[in-house]
Structures are given as C-alpha cells and as structure tokens.
C-alpha cells in the first residue's frame, strides 16, 4: 500500500512490483520486463531533464534580474513570463542553421550532440530518491566524472571546427581549464568516498542519515568541490571559454539555432548534475525530515546549490586565464591533497 506521505521512490518501487506481478502472471520474459522498466525510467528522466533545463534557464534569468534590480522576463505570457524559455526553444528550433563556409562540417555538426549526450547519461546514476536511481552502480560517481570529461572534447570540437580564431581560443581555454579542474573536483569527492568507503551513490547517501558531510571535516572538500565544480561547468568566475567580453562568445560563437540551443541546454544540465552531486555527497541527498518526500528534499538542496552558482555568477568578475591555471594547480590541488590527508586522519581517529 502507498500513502501520500511516502516518497516517490516508494511509489516507483511499488509500481515496479506490480509490473513484475503482472509480467509473471502473463509469462512475459524477464528481459522485456527489465527493458520496459528501464525504458520508462529513461523517458521519465528525459522529460525531467528538459523540464529542468527550461526551469534553470528561466531561473537564471530571474535570479540575475532580481539581483540587478529588474524583473527579467515578464511579458511573454503567463505568470511572470514563465513561458519565456519555451518561446526561446521554439525559436531556436526554427531558426536557420548556419554552418560557416570554411568550417569542418561534420565535426561542427557532431559537437552539439557530443556535448549533450554525456550530460544526459550523467543523470542515470543520480539518486533522486530512495530506489529512484537509474542504475545504482558500484562505481556511480566514476561514471559521472567519466562522462563529464567528454564534455571538454565536444567543446574543443566545436571550437576547432568553427574555423574561427575566437572559437579556437575558447576551445583551447576550455580544454586547459576543464582538465586542470577535473583533478581537484575528483579529489574533493575522494574525501567523502574515503569516509563512506564506497563509490556507490546510495551508500553515500545512506551514510549521511544522521549528519550531513557538510558539517564534518568534509566541509573543506565541499568548498573545493563547489569551486572546482563552478569551473567544470564554465560559469563565472571561471567562464573563460565563453568570456563574452574577450572572446565574443567563446567556443559557440559560430553556432546558431538548434545547435546553440544544445550548448545552452548542456550548460544548464551540467550545472544541475554538479549541484546534484554536491547535494548527494555533502548535503545528504534525499535524506531529510521524515514528513518531506525524499525527492523534494533532494531537489531543494540541488536548487540551493544551483542558486549558489548563479549567485557567484552575478557577483564576481572573471578570472584571467593564467591566474585560473595558477589557482587550480597551485592552490586548489594542494588544498585538496591536504583535505584528503585530513579526512584520512579523521577517519582513522573515528575508528
């Protein structure tokens, strides 16, 4: 039986059980049942992702607007212009798709797809709620970081294929930046993994049932993670691959229409993933007050981090390229090593 107070995860498990019963009754093979189950989850995820991207873009515009003492989208129909992003997307969909004359046509075409697919796949291992996870792999977090490293490839592809000096510089910058910030990003999460002793997402969440890792010595790891994560998704103060005032629009300067839309969407889905990991690893994932459904608690935390990232973006100036590298290699990386050391000592002492 399900009750209203129970979480979405429980509902999902209940549905799966009914499905299994139904299949067993009809004698449908296990493989098909499994595909239906996962397929339904995937479709649900796709809907969720597109909604998330729309909400995030709208949220970014509203947050920035209110920080800047203005209203943001208001006129486009609906309450406070909520349909703004939908209009943007339809327009981008119907806009002429320009491929520059001297561009590498195929790479130019493929790059937006390459940027979008990894960020989609990243969603598979994010635990939205108890049992509500696409694949609870025992290498969960590795999958996300593995996929997110592909994003750099696509940005570089896009930058190089456009055959424009600004995009090339943007691509090169992004390659340098993302590779150097990947290290502190992974190392900061390593502290949590050491504390828990597992790479599995659900284990990490369960370990925070009593106290979030944010309030343990892992706090330092959280800060490093937020900084490196901001850099990983190319947001101010680390938005040098796009650097509007320097490189026009960076790697996506030559992209128009739908392809640019993909770049934009992936930026926001990546932001969501980074925030979701932060929520999972440091803020207890779907753990929360018992009266609150797990997914609400999880999304609340995630959007809090997203807001934090937006807050950064609309407050700070941009780093300079070489300072960014200095900061990454000379400050953040040693700091994350120190963090690991500290966590190791803490874990030992606790035992």
């Amino acid at each position, binding site marked *: 039986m399900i009750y209203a107070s129970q979480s979405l995860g429980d509902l999902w498990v209940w549905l799966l059980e009914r499905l299994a019963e139904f299949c067993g009754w009809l004698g449908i093979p296990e493989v098909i049942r499994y595909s239906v189950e996962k397929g339904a989850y995937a479709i649900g995820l796709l809907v969720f992702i597109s909604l998330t991207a729309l909400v995030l873009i709208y949220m970014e*515009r509203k947050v920035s607007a209110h920080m800047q003492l203005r209203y943001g989208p*208001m*006129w486009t129909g609906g309450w406070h212009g909520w349909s*703004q992003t939908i209009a*943007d997307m339809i327009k981008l969909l*119907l*806009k002429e798709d320009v491929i520059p004359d001297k561009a590498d046509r195929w790479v130019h075409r493929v790059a937006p797809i390459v940027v979008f697919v990894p960020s989609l796949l990243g969603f598979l291992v994010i635990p939205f709620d108890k049992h509500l996870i696409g694949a609870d792999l025992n290498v969960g977090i590795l999958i996300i970081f593995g996929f997110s490293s592909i994003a750099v490839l696509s940005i570089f592809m896009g930058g190089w294929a456009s055959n424009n000096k600004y995009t090339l510089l943007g691509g090169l910058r992004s390659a340098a930046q993302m590779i150097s910030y990947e290290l502190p990003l992974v190392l900061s999460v390593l502290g949590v993994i050491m504390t828990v002793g597992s790479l599995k997402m659900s284990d990490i969440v369960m370990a925070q049932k009593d106290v979030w890792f944010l309030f343990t010595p892992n706090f330092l790891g959280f800060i490093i993670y937020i900084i490196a994560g901001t850099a990983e998704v190319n947001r101010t103060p680390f938005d040098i691959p796009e650097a509007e005032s320097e490189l026009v*629009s960076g790697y*996506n300067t030559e992209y*128009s229409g739908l392809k640019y839309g993909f770049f934009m969407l992936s930026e926001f889905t990546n932001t969501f993933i980074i925030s979701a990991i932060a929520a999972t690893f440091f803020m207890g994932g779907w753990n929360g007050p018992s009266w609150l459904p797990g997914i609400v608690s999880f999304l609340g935390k995630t959007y809090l981090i997203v807001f934090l990232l937006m807050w950064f973006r609309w407050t700070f100036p941009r780093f300079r390229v070489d300072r960014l590298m200095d900061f990454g290699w000379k400050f953040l990386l040693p700091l994350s090593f120190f963090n690991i050391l500290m966590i190791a000592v803490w874990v030992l002492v606790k035992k």
Partner: protein
Amino acid sequence: MGLVLDKAPYILESFPGGSYVVTSMDWVINWSRKSSLWPLSFGLACCAIEWMADVGSRNDFDRFGVFPRPTPRQADLIFISGTLTKKMASRVRRLYEQMAEPRYVISMGSCSNTGGPFYDSYSVVKGVDKVLPVDVYIAGCPPRPEAVLLSILKLQEKIMTETISHKK
C-alpha cells in the same frame, strides 16, 4: 528546419482544414519569434548609450525576452544604434549577413534613419536603409529608452502578421 517551414504548409494546405493548422502553426511560430528577440549587443554611437540604458534596470529589455547576444550567429535582431559611417557600412552589412534567418533590423535614432545631424557629412551613410532592409524606424536623437521598448512592441506586432503559408 526547412521541412517544417517550407514543405509542411504545402502538404497541409492540400488537406481539408489544413489552413487552420497552418494558421495555428503560424501563431506558435510567430509567438516564439516575437517573444524571444535576441538582439546583437552592438553599438555604434550615442544611441548605443541609450540602448545600454534599455538593458539597465530602469527599462529592462529582458521583460520582453530581449536578451543581448554578443555574436551575430545567435542574434535575431540588430539595432543600428548610431551614426553609420561609410567605413563601417560594409562591416554592418557583413554582420547582417552573418545573422541567421529570420532577422530583423531596427534603425534607432536620426543618424541611422537619414544621417541626422551629419546629413551633409562626407563620411556618413545617409540612412541605414541604403545598406540593410529596416523593419522599424525610431525617431529621436537619441530616442528615449522607452521609445526603444515601443519599437520592440511594434516589431512584435509586425512579426505577428507573418505567415509560413504560401497562399498569400
């Protein structure tokens, strides 16, 4: 997206009641286009400062979904905000050509309307319409930011009259 915009009206209109579908498609397409006019963040002269005032908090372009883009590829709208000189004319033309269809031009202020205070200068283009097809003209030198907002509303009205139908 040639399939939707070019082929679909032909196919649809051959069916009975197809023109209704085309009309409603028109509405959706025009609504999306008018609601998300992304201008090129590009300024020429004095009017560019008033254009910036439009981006600013008091007048806030963003309320109409106007969201400046730095690159012409992603822009739908170009404001010719200021004096267009002969040296700049070919560059502006190129910028316009780099923009993806559909694209719109707003001529802002007297200088770009007709040459304005520099109507007898040896180096000023006497009206941007000699270089680009202009959709809306704004009078003023420079126009108030509110007048620029009004020009956007006017352009939105104009966009709503567009159609993908081949039966004119």
